[in-house]
């Protein structure tokens, strides 16, 4: 099904199942520990051996020698695989660094060997017996230093392939110079770790030249394709299975070393092999959100209207890597005739930087939305009002391109009303609660709507069950449930009559989970397949499919009615289709919007920050399931609170690695850090985006939260911190006197 015209009225609009709060259909399995994750398929793989990965102990250089003798002699060891004996390996399209290093080392903790043994304990102990001598090379580990000579970089995802690296509209420099009110500040965001709860893990089993990998991966087809490329085998010989995924946030978008090393270990040992990355291995072995250094300049009239806006960002990555696209939102979020955005990419030798929840916008909004707070103060304007005054209903760079739907102003106004924003003191450092300094902060939320083709197969079985199969994944997002809701709505059956099977490369290729495109795209693919199945059902029943309605297990057309099950008396019906996207995202800018409000308390003696209240108001098209959508948003708000207050991978600039590479050193929010959170969804249905009329919310929720927290802290203390995370050491010496 090609979606190239705005959606008309369709069966989803009934919203008898879609749009209703429904508990997750996978809930009983997850809450009882029965949902099998990657490392847990013991019912299918009965006699696995265990693989333990050895990582490089240097950040850059080469392996001078490796002595495997002791490890190979160790009890229980079956085989040791290194680059030397692994055979020729390719590199996946989505991987920046090789997943098995040696002799060249590209980054710290790059995998250099896997030890396969009968048990986990034996493999782990033997891995520690491998002796490696390295020839250490100087690496580029200091972002500030590397950015001094870094060239401009184009947005790798830009649809305009020959666009200049800088994006310019009007005359920024001239307009900024003449603006009555100016802001020109630098902001910094650190390297961050996804730190999803389930470590990367895979079980690999060969049957002749066919390979099955039970793994934890957000994008089944990408992973499967890249594993085939890496191993140099036909894609058809690889099956990827990932029914439950213990979080990803972008860290599991790509093939990683667990799957490659499990496959190599299994080949070499002749046994199925299971490999999980140890927690302290993950931040340096896999990917992270790259640090940014951002400069923002905004010139405004005395009325608060933006005349000129510039956002420049620099980040680093390994050779052939990509910039963190932190300036994306600034091209679209606020009005203003004179604009400039650009990115610089420094080539560095730290581990691979890549997508983490809302890549680009998450760190970009952390900076931009502090800048807006600062500008509001310079103007003597309320921060909500400043944003309202600079709303735009068109793409500011292309005035003939409207937003498909844009309710940012309503989000801000309703949020302000609900949060009690009028109680905020415009003067910072003015509100006390005992020895606590109190403040409120706000920020806009913004994230684009992305469209990826997505396929599904739907089967109406003779027992009346509707079975949906797609390689879509559920990484905690609620895919199982919203897909079941979609199929139930389309086929007119109770949700209990729908069986959803996900995460298997034997199923049609879907959008996968990433970029908050999963919910809208995958359900649209299911919608397309259901349209076909409805046609097949109508045909069997002798109904005109265009007029047939499906409801309560029946099919009706005119005054005729038949049971849905009647259509499959002669045998089941199967339909497969995929949603493909026309040009509506070219003629309309498709984005999601929101407003965050935060109340923070800062201990007047210690500078410790506690978040007291959080509210998000979101406008993201039709909300397919308010329960799971709300969870996506509170989860994103929580991760944003972490980004604001504690998350930072500390770089050892001499040795070239992230030092705090586990969950004790890399602090993420815990229960004590997060108060009750409120989320409001505006009622919307965006007919320009898909037949579901829905957009994503999972990344919208993190965009802007960090700045809302930072702005609340500033409002409490009067000390502006522009270097995330906002830890107490950065404002302690300047806190107001506490009597």
């Amino acid at each position, binding site marked *: 099904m090609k979606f190239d015209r705005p959606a008309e009225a369709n069966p989803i609009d009934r919203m008898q199942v879609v749009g209703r709060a429904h508990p997750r259909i996978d809930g009983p399995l997850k809450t*009882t520990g029965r949902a099998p994750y990657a490392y847990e398929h013991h*019912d299918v793989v009965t006699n696995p051996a265990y693989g333990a990965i050895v990582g490089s102990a240097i950040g850059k250089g080469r392996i001078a020698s490796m002595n495997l003798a002791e490890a190979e002699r160790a009890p229980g060891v079956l085989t040791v695989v290194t680059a030397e004996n692994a055979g020729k390996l390719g590199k996946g399209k989505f991987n920046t660094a090789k997943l098995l290093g040696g002799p060249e080392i590209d980054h710290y903790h790059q995998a250099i060997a896997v030890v396969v043994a009968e048990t986990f*304990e034996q493999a782990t102990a033997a891995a520690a017996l491998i002796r490696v001598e390295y020839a250490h090379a100087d690496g580029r580990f200091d972002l500030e230093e590397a950015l001094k000579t870094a060239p401009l970089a184009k947005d790798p995802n830009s649809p305009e392939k020959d666009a200049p690296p800088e994006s310019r509209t009007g005359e920024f420099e001239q307009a900024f110079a003449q603006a009555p009110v100016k802001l020109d500040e630098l902001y910094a965001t650190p390297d961050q770790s996804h730190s999803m709860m389930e470590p990367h893990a895979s079980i690999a089993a060969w049957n002749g030249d066919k390979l099955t990998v039970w793994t934890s991966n957000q994008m089944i087809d990408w992973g499967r394709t890249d594993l085939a490329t890496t191993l140099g085998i036909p894609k058809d010989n690889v099956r990827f299975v990932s029914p439950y995924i213990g*979080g990803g946030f972008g860290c599991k978008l790509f093939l990683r070393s667990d799957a490659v090393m499990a496959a190599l270990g299994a080949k070499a040992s002749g046994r199925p092999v299971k490999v999980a990355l140890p927690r302290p291995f993950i931040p340096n072995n896999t990917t992270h959100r790259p640090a940014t250094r951002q400069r923002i300049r905004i010139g405004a009239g005395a009325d608060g209207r933006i005349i000129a806006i510039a956002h420049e960002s620099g980040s680093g990555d390994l050779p052939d890597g990509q910039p963190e696209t932190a300036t994306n939102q600034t091209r679209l979020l606020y009005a203003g005739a004179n604009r400039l955005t650009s990115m610089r990419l420094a080539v560095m030798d730290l581990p691979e930087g890549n997508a983490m929840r809302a890549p680009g916008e998450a760190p970009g909004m952390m900076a931009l939305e502090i800048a807006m707070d600062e500008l509001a103060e310079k103007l003597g304007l309320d921060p909500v009002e400043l944003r309202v005054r600079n709303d735009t209903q068109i793409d500011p760079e292309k005035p003939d391109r409207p937003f498909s739907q844009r309710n940012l102003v309503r989000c801000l106004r309703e949020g302000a009303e609900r949060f009690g924003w009028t109680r905020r003191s415009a003067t910072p450092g003015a509100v006390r609660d005992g020895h606590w300094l109190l403040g409120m902060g706000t920020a806009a939320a913004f994230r684009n709507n992305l469209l990826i083709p997505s396929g599904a197969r739907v089967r109406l079985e003779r027992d009346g069950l509707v079975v949906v199969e797609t390689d879509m994944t559920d990484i905690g997002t609620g895919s199982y449930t919203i897909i079941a809701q979609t199929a139930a709505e389309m086929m007119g059956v109770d949700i209990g009559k729908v069986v959803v099977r996900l995460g298997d490369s034997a199923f049609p290729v879907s959008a996968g989970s990433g970029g908050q495109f999963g919910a809208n795209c995958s359900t649209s693919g299911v919608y397309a397949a259901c349209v076909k199945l409805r046609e097949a059902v109508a045909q069997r029943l002798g109904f005109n499919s265009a007029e047939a309605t499906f409801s309560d297990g029946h099919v009706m057309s005119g005054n005729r009615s038949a049971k849905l099950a009647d259509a499959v008396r002669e045998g089941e019906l199967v339909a497969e289709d995929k949603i493909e996207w026309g040009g509506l995202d070219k003629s309309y800018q498709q984005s999601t919007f929101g407003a965050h409000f935060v109340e923070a308390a800062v201990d007047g003696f210690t500078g410790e920050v506690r978040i007291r209240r959080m509210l998000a108001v979101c406008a993201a098209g039709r909300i397919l399931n308010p329960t799971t959508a709300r969870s996506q948003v509170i989860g994103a708000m929580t991760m944003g609170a972490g980004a604001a207050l504690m998350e930072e991978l500390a770089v050892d600039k001499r040795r070239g690695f992230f030092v705090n590479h586990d969950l004790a050193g890399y602090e993420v*929010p815990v229960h*004590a850090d997060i108060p009750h959170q409120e989320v409001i969804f505006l009622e919307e249905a965006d007919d320009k985006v898909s037949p579901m009329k829905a957009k994503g919310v999972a990344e919208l929720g993190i965009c802007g939260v960090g700045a809302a927290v930072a702005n609340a802290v500033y409002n409490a203390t009067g000390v502006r911190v522009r270097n995330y995370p906002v830890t107490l050491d950065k404002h302690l010496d300047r806190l107001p006197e506490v009597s």
Partner: protein
Amino acid sequence: MPKPVKLEVSRRHLLAAGTATAMVGVVPGTKAQPQSSSQRLSQRPTGVAFEVNGKLRSLQVDNRTTLLDALRENLSLTGTKKGCDHGQCGACTVIVNGVRINSCLTLAVMHEGDRITTIEGLGQPEQLHPMQAAFVKHDGYQCGYCTPGQICSAVAVLDEIKAGIPSHVSHDLTVAPVLTNAELRERMSGNICRCGAYSNIAEAIADVAGSST
């Protein structure tokens, strides 16, 4: 220019140890010999018997096997999750003799005769424990990987409060603690949920406890 650096053996061991779990390692600074005494010792499995979810289980385990791995790998009870293997995340929380512990921080052989309750012992998909049902009702989870640990912790937290055990945020040690939102969040803070379901988890627990937080 690349500078050859020969890492000292002790440094290498230090780095390698970061990837190891509760293992009997070679002593840093000494050249490990194949079949060292520690290795020979570890090759001999030890018999241990304990009760898991009301059933007596006898098994032969490597001395280095954690209770977590014994449950997951030896007994195929994979409901208990391995998130960090270092006592940092709480995903492996189980209830041993009525007290919640991180099962990754204890060896299986240390639990002779113990009564262990895992997530599988609390309820079944068709017959959920009230805490499991509350997590489903309040959407107190997303990816589900920390969930068994959160639920086991939550069940134990309510018992701890009932038993009058104070926490860091209990203001008065002479009176019985009550289940406030602050108490609950403090006591649950050893269980990380990166999906960020905390707000909903708090509501699920409060629902079971019959209090409003």
